[in-house]
């Protein structure tokens, strides 16, 4: 448990450090995710050491988005100024991304097989 948390927080720290030093537009946590994958590939970290903690965190990933979601209250007025154009484009564009990515991937992997 402690080993798992230590490894994850060290990767996060490395990610935040790299993002800061190189002034990357990527958040530290995404770089930390790549760092953890690399550490596992290189055998620096073993899966058994991080898996229980990682599974625990990911099982409740959705909950972690609740506080920023409640924060939408603050933007009510801002969103109201252009609610129709924003609303329509969000719904349509989300369907387009889902369709293009999902359909194309499925088409390409079937052709490959």
């Amino acid at each position, binding site marked *: 448990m402690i080993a798992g948390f230590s490894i*994850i927080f060290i990767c996060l720290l490395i990610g935040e450090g790299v993002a800061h030093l190189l002034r990357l537009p990527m958040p530290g946590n995404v770089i930390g995710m790549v760092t953890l994958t690399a550490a596992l590939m290189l055998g620096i970290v073993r899966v058994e050491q991080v898996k229980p903690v990682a599974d625990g965190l990911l099982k409740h990933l959705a909950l972690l988005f609740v506080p920023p979601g409640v924060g939408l209250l603050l933007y009510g007025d801002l969103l109201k100024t252009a609610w129709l154009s924003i609303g329509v484009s969000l719904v349509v564009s989300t369907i387009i991304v889902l369709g293009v990515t999902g359909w194309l991937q499925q088409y390409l992997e079937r052709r490959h097989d």
Partner: protein
Amino acid sequence: MTELLTSPTFAIASTLLVYWLAQKVYARWSLPFLNPVLITILALMGMIQGLQIPYERYAAGGQYISFWLGPAVVALGVPLYQHLDTIKRQGVAISIALLAGSIAGIVSAAGLAGLLGASDIIMISIAPKSATTPIAMGIVEKLNGIPSLTAAIVVITGVLGAVIGPTVLRWLGVISPTAFGLAMGAAAHGLGTSRALEEGEIQGAMSGLALCVNGIMTAALTPVLLKILLVFLHR
């Protein structure tokens, strides 16, 4: 009493309790619009307004929960590692699908908003909507949009994608687990990923990969695509 209601402990306890109940409701009826995150956000919005708790007081406790987003995103490295075989085997297909999805997302979001009469500043602020919050806000800040509006739009997109995503994909006949995961992560970042994880580990891993790659692509492509779109719309 007011002191208790505005304490971080109250914010944390109410968030956990409402989420727990929302999960129970979702487990019983399993309807897409009963998505636990959506229900919890709406219920808590109603609660803090009803009890007249200033948002900053709620956020003072809420930050202890959302803080864990950082380590949780790092934790996605584990499923990613465990599915490296698939990623290597289908590397080309995955890259093409994600690149196409990223371009389609930026162009359709900003383009549609523009066609429906939104100002340039709103077009800029909506363009990176499918990327994860810090990436999207960083892009918009550089392009002189409204980063706080982007933060709101990104969360709405995430909830929307998590709620309608599986239905839309089923409707389009997308059944491959890899394709399902990639689509959810590309369209709805971390919230899409949390929904993809419910379907299975491979879906979750692919969604985490898509969140990462889509973030990089969106950061690189948004400035160029927006420039072209703005020229085109202002003929």
